[in-house]
């Protein structure tokens, strides 16, 4: 227990030091730009057939989230005990019960639940880890550098892979393809498309209703990705503005900046707790719940 506190104290000291040193130096050089939090400078340039596949900050965040999802959870699973000791196993068991009982079994019939639980569980953990590491300041902001003991180091910044539209969109796209394939497999192409039309609609109304339903299928793709992306992006923007961006943009002199900074800094702490306490988990939960609901809707007999 003691070692953990020392690690936390060391981390906080580094954070406080860099917080005090970095913006001051950046402001002195008149180069502090709050928008650079979302900038993605290329680190290693890779081009495959003209497609830009360069390694940048977002790629690193995806890799970290993937490692946490696969390696860490596998290690915890391997060290499971019949009588849980410590909080780690209890936490994982609560998460498992949420994924298994609440999200998967609560929305899918047993056969579908058994088939899709690994996918939905992985999705949940990946999104959750992506969101959560997005709220830990990590030294990956290469747009600004700080100099400590003569070595130029990237500054600490918040970033999340899910705050970049491409990541939620690809996740939503995989889900979208999956439930269409599952629906076609269960009912055949004609039966599946007919299943979009609610029971009781007959005659000439089938055409327009089918059109609206087809449109709503496309909207699902957009809403599923934008919901996750915009939630995380808005959270990060809020933290960015409250945690200093507003003070820098308004530039009201020393006294005004201090008063405004104290007020917005307090708000930043409140919003930070709100984000890690509710939004990060809730967005992972809602993404997976909707995945399960869409899968169930695709194979359900009655619409």
């Amino acid at each position: 227990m003691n070692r953990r506190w020392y690690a936390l104290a060391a981390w906080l000291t580094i954070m406080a030091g860099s917080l005090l040193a970095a913006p001051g130096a950046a402001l002195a050089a008149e180069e502090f730009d709050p928008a650079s939090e979302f900038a993605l400078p290329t680190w290693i340039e890779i081009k495959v057939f003209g497609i830009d596949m360069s390694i940048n900050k977002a790629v690193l965040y995806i890799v970290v989230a993937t490692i946490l999802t696969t390696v860490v959870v596998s290690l915890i699973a391997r060290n499971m005990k019949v009588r849980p000791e410590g909080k780690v196993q209890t936490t994982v068991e609560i998460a498992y019960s949420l994924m298994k009982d609440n999200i998967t079994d609560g929305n899918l019939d047993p056969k579908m639940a058994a088939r899709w639980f690994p996918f939905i569980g992985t999705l949940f953990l990946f999104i959750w880890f992506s969101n959560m590491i997005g709220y830990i300041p990590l030294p990956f902001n290469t747009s600004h550098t700080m100099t400590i003991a003569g070595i130029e180091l990237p500054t600490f910044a918040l970033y999340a892979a899910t705050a970049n539209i491409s990541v939620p969109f690809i996740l939503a796209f995989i889900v979208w393809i999956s439930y269409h394939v599952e629906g076609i497999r269960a009912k055949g192409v004609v039966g599946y498309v007919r299943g979009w039309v609610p029971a009781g609609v007959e005659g000439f109304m089938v055409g327009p209703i089918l059109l609206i339903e087809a449109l709503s299928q496309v909207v699902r793709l957009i809403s599923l990705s934008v919901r996750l992306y915009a939630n995380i992006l808005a959270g990060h923007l809020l933290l960015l503005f409250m945690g200093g961006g507003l003070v820098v943009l308004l530039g009201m002199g020393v006294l005004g900046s201090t008063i405004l900074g104290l007020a917005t800094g307090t708000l930043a702490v409140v919003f930070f707790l709100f984000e890690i306490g509710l939004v990060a988990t809730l967005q992972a939960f809602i993404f997976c719940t909707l995945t399960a609901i869409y899968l169930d809707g695709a194979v359900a007999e009655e619409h």
Partner: protein
Amino acid sequence: MDPSIILAAVDVETAGAYAETAGRAMGLGLGTGLAALGTGIGLGYIFGKTIEAVSRQPELKSEIQSIQWLGFALTEATVFYGFIAGLIAFFV
């Protein structure tokens, strides 16, 4: 009132140059703000109805709460659709 007073007070030449930026900023602000209006009403409904339901059927509290968070997240997302539309209006 003589409109020339307003025109004299505002330098039309400079105002014209900022008109587009101002319109974009208003699009972002109004888009997000109006979306927040609807979301606020919706969230109030959800939590109000949850309180009502729990006070009528306290034994169903956990079930109602899990549906409540589903409704919360779905409703809350609508403000971000307005926000994203505003960002598109602002930057594109």
